[in-house]
């Protein structure tokens, strides 16, 4: 998921940076500042998730969690992910500073998409329906991210079909795991802290 410095062409880097700045501005504007601790906790969760490699068979995967972050934060996913990606570049050497904009866009935009797509689903009165939408959000964010990574690579000269296939196939296990994790997280949050998903208000009205 983290594209490294040197893989992308300059126009792609600039476009990514500009769109990320726009997204972060939007996030800061729309963010409910009473939820700032929540933004921080999810940012920290993302920061750690990429570091913990879960061994599966003879390889390993790590969670990305951008679906969950999108569902919980909406547009605030942009600043949260930017900070986490920056610190990952500083501490772990994941990605790089020049590609920070593109990486943030590739991970945060799918998060926002899932927010709009699944927001109503996860606040459904039926727990099963909510879990299914949570799973869609978790897996869907990864699908979108792989497509955006492939698009970034294509615009920098790599063949889209090839890049998309390689990235997509490599992330199928992540999609499956992420779907389960997000569904479980949605169920848990609904039980203990429904306002995290913005359910609270709708319930009160409904």
């Amino acid at each position, binding site marked *: *998921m*983290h*594209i*490294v410095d*040197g*893989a*992308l062409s300059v126009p792609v880097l600039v476009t990514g940076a500009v769109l990320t700045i726009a997204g972060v501005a939007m996030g800061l504007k729309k963010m409910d*500042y009473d939820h*700032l*601790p929540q*933004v*921080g906790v999810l*940012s*920290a969760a993302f*920061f*750690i998730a*990429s*570091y913990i*490699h879960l061994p*599966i*068979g*003879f*390889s*390993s*995967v*790590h969670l*990305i969690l951008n679906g969950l972050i999108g569902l919980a934060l909406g547009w605030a996913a942009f600043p949260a992910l930017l*900070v*986490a990606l920056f*610190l*990952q570049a*500083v*501490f*772990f*050497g*994941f990605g790089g500073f020049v590609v920070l904009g593109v990486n943030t866009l590739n991970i945060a935009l799918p998060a926002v998409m899932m927010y709009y797509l699944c927001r109503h689903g996860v606040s459904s009165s039926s727990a099963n329906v909510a879990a299914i939408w949570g799973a869609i959000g978790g897996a869907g964010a990864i699908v979108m991210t792989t497509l955006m*990574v492939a698009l*970034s*690579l294509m615009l920098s000269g*790599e063949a889209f079909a*090839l*890049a998309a296939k*390689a*990235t997509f*196939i*490599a*992330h*199928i*296990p*992540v999609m*499956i795991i992420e779907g389960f994790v997000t569904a479980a997280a949605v169920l848990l949050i609904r039980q203990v802290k429904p306002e995290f998903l913005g359910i609270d208000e709708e319930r009160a009205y409904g």
Partner: protein
Amino acid sequence: MANVRYFLAIIMTTLALNAGAHNVIGGVYAIGSTIEGEIGFSNGDMAPEGTEVIVFDHLGNELGRVKTDADGLFAFDASKRVEHFFYANLSSGHVVEMSLPADQLPASLAGDDAQAGSVKQSEYAASTNTDSIDQTQLKSMIEAAVAKQVKPLRQELTAYKEKAGLQDVIGGIGYIFGLCGLGIWWRQRQKDKQDKSDAAIS
């Protein structure tokens, strides 16, 4: 049942390809005039067999292309004593660039300062004419032996440099919470100011 097996088969094959968001790491070492290198991911997986490595000199001229073997290793025979750059693209945005400084290559190779090198070489040959062959043989043997001994150390060092420890993890979390604290503090100040001005108005 057949479906489940099919599904598992897909998962197993995809796992083999899985590169995730691991860093690409690699190292190059000179053994005599042969440059050996390896490319892998920070989680210990090696580069897939047949990954193309493009070799450049310090001016950006392509010197050649080599392919990695099953263990992610490759070898390139240097013909010039110049700085060598190695570039490999492992797809999905994983690229790696490595360089080998000229001074790690044996002086017997013609470099940019080829004349100086050859003069030295002829002096050397003149002074030790009788056993010069043994000397060069011995030299290359020593080089090979030292390279063999040093190789695991270099690999370990590369892996160590890529490794992030608990300090990094805790440091990063600390930064995030610190930023949140700053945000909350700033927010609180804004609120206080507003309250004060509200109070002043009423």
